[in-house]
């Protein structure tokens, strides 16, 4: 037994070392940096205590970014669920070509973010884009819509992100759907339940816990998404209409070279996520207890 424990620790050692050195230490170090006015490249730093945090409390840009993040995460989460769950239900039915369709649905999730973004930028291009062409041909709009201009850039970002990430919802939900015993549906059908009531009273209760995980992970991931948002905005002037906290943190650190400020933003996001997750767990537990 003793020998087993030693072997166990030895096997765990490389992972623990890596996690300690590359995850735990940087997170703590990040909190430490956030207390300094630190240049990103030069070895210049000055202790400012909680100064950065006080600054952000009054910083308009911070609150704008926070607002954009909430809108972005909220809208993409709702739409991913609205598109993803029906797709998963559909793919769970038996029909010809199901395997092929499953592969196709996964496609957006597999292609690199940069490709997804450039694809949508081309589709939404105001002069040559397919979207404007179809809208005009259908008579839905009179002139081309500036999808990448300041009024529509957030909508375009949300569309791109939903397209890119809804397959995650499909796959995760589908995996759980497949483990629901068919007898439950048979029993419900015998009892005269239609498709909607079967969904409401069999599928939903069975998939509650996976929905819980999907909502949690997707909202965290969308709120902290960097690449899609940053690539969508490019360097243009519209970037400030979709700037979220991760992009703001990046700009502070690597554009304005204020590493200390960037670190403080990372800490703020970290705390926000922990608090939101804790509240989410509390609410869900209470609901569990009631049902």
């Amino acid at each position, binding site marked *: 037994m003793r020998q087993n424990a030693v072997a166990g620790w030895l096997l765990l050692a490389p992972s623990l070392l890596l996690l300690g050195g590359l995850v735990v230490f940087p*997170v703590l170090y*990040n909190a430490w940096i956030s207390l300094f006015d630190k240049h990103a490249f030069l070895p210049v730093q000055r202790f400012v205590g909680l100064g950065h945090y006080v600054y952000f409390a009054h910083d308009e840009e911070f609150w704008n970014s926070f607002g954009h993040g909430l809108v972005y995460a909220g809208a993409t989460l709702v739409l991913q669920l609205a598109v993803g769950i029906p797709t998963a239900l559909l793919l769970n039915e038996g029909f010809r070509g199901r395997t092929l369709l499953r592969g196709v649905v996964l496609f957006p999730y597999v292609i690199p973010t940069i*490709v997804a973004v450039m694809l949508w930028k081309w589709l939404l291009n105001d002069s040559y884009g397919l979207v404007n062409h179809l809208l005009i041909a259908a008579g839905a709009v009179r002139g081309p819509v500036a999808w990448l201009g300041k009024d529509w850039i957030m909508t375009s970002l949300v569309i791109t992100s939903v397209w890119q990430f809804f397959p995650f919802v499909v796959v995760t939900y589908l995996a759980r759907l497949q483990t629901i015993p068919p007898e439950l549906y048979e029993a419900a059908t015998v009892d005269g339940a239609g498709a909607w009531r079967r969904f409401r009273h069999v599928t939903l209760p069975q998939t509650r816990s996976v929905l819980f995980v999907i909502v949690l992970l997707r909202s965290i991931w969308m709120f902290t998404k960097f690449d899609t948002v940053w690539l969508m905005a490019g360097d243009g002037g519209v970037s400030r209409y979709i700037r979220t906290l991760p992009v703001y943190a990046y700009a502070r650190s690597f554009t304005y070279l204020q590493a200390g400020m960037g670190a403080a933003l*990372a800490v703020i996001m970290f705390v926000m996520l922990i608090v939101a997750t804790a509240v989410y767990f509390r609410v869900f537990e209470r609901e569990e207890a009631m049902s």
Partner: protein
Amino acid sequence: MFAPVMIIIPFYILVKQLGIVNTRLALVLSYTTFCLPFCLWLLRAFFESIPLELEEAAMVDGAGRARAVWHVVLPLALPGLIAAAIFTFILAYNDFLFALVLITSEELKTLPVGVNDLFNATIVDWGMIMAAGVMITLPAVLFFAGVQRYLVQGWGAGGVKG
């Protein structure tokens, strides 16, 4: 699991102090950091689902611990290993932030960053950008298609990339 952007600043400073900015090693370390927690979690679930009796039976038949693991446990955990591999591959292949911050030279740039540079060129050549897009999507799709059947199982055991 947290996002790259929350760790990139201390990571960048550490990498700089270690003198490995603009090296492949820096990227390897970054992606390892990012995938390790998830892979540990995923693989643990797979290993746990393999009955201990199988391993014991192999050892009763005279196999040492190492052989029991190699010939009995690993083959059974293969779907999990593949799922972890796909996850890590896609995350590292797609990553933008680490490659953007940690790599400065043209020669070491990864594909996503390189393609993005085409956007920032004076004249945006859409034909060339699209061709680059197809080229960098192909390896990911081929890799994915090859191992797709293991996937639903792997993903069912937990979440996957952000």
